[in-house]
């Protein structure tokens, strides 16, 4: 289960995001993944074609007002993490991204949560929860990063 890297195997990335803006922001990060084996996980079946031929894993979307669905989301993400066995997990939010990081951390993967550029004044709940769990939590706004004690390393635009 632990992703001990063999020299023959390329670095494996699991890129996890919800739909809508979270997904569009993930797509803009793809140049940084060059040279790695990238698996995408998101919530809309039609998103798969946008990243083909990269492997695509579907999980049910949920937010904090849907506790039962969140359990399904966590279970599905646990299966995805167990199958992919990523070395690195990158998430652009939201709840599913936090859950994937939490699960992948147990397997020793290195994890980064990048909060949506939509959160220009406050850190999202998912990013706040990720703070104690992910190796790195980034806000895309310097003011938010200062207030909430996260990093600022630029934005998706």
């Amino acid at each position, binding site marked *: 289960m632990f992703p001990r890297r063999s020299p023959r195997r390329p670095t494996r990335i699991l890129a996890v995001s919800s739909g809508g803006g979270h997904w569009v922001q993930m797509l803009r990060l793809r140049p940084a993944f060059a040279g790695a084996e990238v698996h995408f996980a998101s919530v809309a079946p039609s998103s798969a074609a946008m990243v083909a031929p990269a492997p695509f894993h579907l999980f049910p979307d949920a937010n904090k007002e849907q506790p039962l669905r969140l359990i399904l989301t966590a279970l599905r993400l646990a299966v995805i993490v167990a199958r992919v066995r990523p070395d690195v997990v990158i998430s652009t939010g939201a709840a599913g991204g936090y859950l994937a990081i939490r699960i992948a951390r147990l397997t020793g993967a290195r994890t980064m949560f990048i909060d949506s550029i939509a959160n220009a004044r*406050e850190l999202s709940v998912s990013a706040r929860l990720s703070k104690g769990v992910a190796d790195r939590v980034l806000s895309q706004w310097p003011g938010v990063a200062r207030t909430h004690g996260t990093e600022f390393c630029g934005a998706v635009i």
Partner: protein
Amino acid sequence: MIFATVGTQLPFDRLLSALDGWASANPDVPVIAQTGQTRTPFSHLQCQAHLDQDGFAAMMAQAKVIVAHAGMGTILSAAEAGKPLILMPRRAAFGEHRNDHQLATAAEMAVLSNVTVIEDAADLAPALQDALAGGETVQPRLPAIASAPLLDALKAFIWNEDSRPIRSSRAIGSGVRA
């Protein structure tokens, strides 16, 4: 053609009703709307509750003007397509979202050259007339990649095996990687 999108989750009837009113007064301009979860009929809009990625991309490509809530997916897609975008932020006070973060998003994204932000329904018609009168003006397209500093930070994190910070002692299995 005008393409309106309010995401696929919560209803945003304040914007769609305003657009429906505009469409009834301007029957020669087709208006296609991704309405999300709403029970309200809009008789002057061609409504679809949910478009898949291909359908959404096709509408973005065909539209002359986009009208939308202040969702980042739409904002980035419209900027990448170089299309004029009229944004009306959702307000928590009207039950349109869980919080008011779209106000901040819209205020910040107003710096993009293709974006016009409106506060309420009364501002929609003038904003639409302005955008449609823009004629052949093609907006510059936003490159579909993140800024260099963010990509560099991401690359450094992905490729530097030592980038696990001090906290790592708490993680189960961290010793395995040593």
